[in-house]
């Protein structure tokens, strides 16, 4: 899932001073799973914004809405009739949802209420861990399903750095496992240690996040 975390509330509120009607919009998909932008969070952020603005001398009416998905144009249409009365929107969906709202409801300003951080999995209640960097050239087939790009602090492709701690955690962050140790253990368990002897060639990062906006086209799906 895409994960996000709330921006400091003071930062959110600073953009809203002077507004009379505000919409706090959430998304019931990824950001709801990571407890940043679902209905529960919308209903928490709205009164906080209202109280913080009132305390600063800006009384405001706060509407709330949690859409099933904020990243798909069809799902945000129900908001359209309400937008005429709104001075500003605070979206706590991921960056995609925020931009989708902003494009659709321009010129109403849509401000981010969250920082979208990464692609992660929920390991335990209240703990999310990054699993994918959307690097554009997946190596999971070579690394026994464990991603060294996202899960190695140095994104190494040819084995551990040598800084693995005795308890198997990363030298950079003792809260996380050395993923290369995990790859090694998984290879050994499958009897395929020799697969790790090959050298990964220099990586082509051109399909990654660098070099401007990426656009993916499937001609068979286009109108």
């Amino acid at each position, binding site marked *: 899932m895409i994960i996000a975390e709330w921006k400091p509330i003071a930062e959110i509120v600073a953009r809203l001073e002077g507004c009379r009607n505000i919409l706090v919009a959430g998304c019931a998909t990824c950001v709801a799973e990571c407890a940043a932008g679902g209905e529960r969070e919308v209903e928490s952020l709205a009164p906080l914004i209202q109280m913080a603005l*009132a305390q600063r001398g800006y009384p405001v009416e706060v509407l*709330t809405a949690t859409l099933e998905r904020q990243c798909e144009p069809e799902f945000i249409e129900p908001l359209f009739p309400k937008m005429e009365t709104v001075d500003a929107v605070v979206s706590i969906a991921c960056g995609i949802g925020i931009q989708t709202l902003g494009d659709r409801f321009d010129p109403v300003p849509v401000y981010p209420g969250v920082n979208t951080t990464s692609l992660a999995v929920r390991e335990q209640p209240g703990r999310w861990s990054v699993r994918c960097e959307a690097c554009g050239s997946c190596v999971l087939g070579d690394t026994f399903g464990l991603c060294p790009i996202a899960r190695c602090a140095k994104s190494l492709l040819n084995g551990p750095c040598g800084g693995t701690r005795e308890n198997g955690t990363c030298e950079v962050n003792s809260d996380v496992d050395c993923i290369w140790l995990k790859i090694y253990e998984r290879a050994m368990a499958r009897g395929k240690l020799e697969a790790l002897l090959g050298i990964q060639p220099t990586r082509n990062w051109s399909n990654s996040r660098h070099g401007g906006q990426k656009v993916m086209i499937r001609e068979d799906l286009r109108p």
Partner: protein
Amino acid sequence: MHETPAPRIVVLYCSRGGMSATEAKSVYEQVSDGPVHLVAMPCSSKVDAPHVLKLLSKGADLVLVLACPEGACQFMVGNVRAEKRIRHIQQLLLSAGIENKRVGLVRGDSFHTQAIVEQVTAHVKAAIESTPRSLPESLSVSPIA
């Protein structure tokens, strides 16, 4: 001369903590700081950020949760969860520049009238001393979709 309005107090209490309806009525009558709204919950863990924050935004000056002692929750860890949530709410209030003493949690072996009245009074004092009251009543938070 402008008269300061009486603080509005909401007490959310675990219904398994032993407070009877009679005791709840006594608390209501004995707290002299302002009107107390006592709300029974099946467990203190039912407390959640949206509920508490909405109470505050609708004009409550203090929201106090009465939870069972640690280890005595009939749902094992409900009161521990309640405490974590209250701490989280206090952090949210702090980050929004709002006095976080307006929310509190009290543990008690049993909920006796006098002890509750004392706790409410102490929390009201702490919350009110540091908070300008109250928020405009005309403002609203309402769902639209």
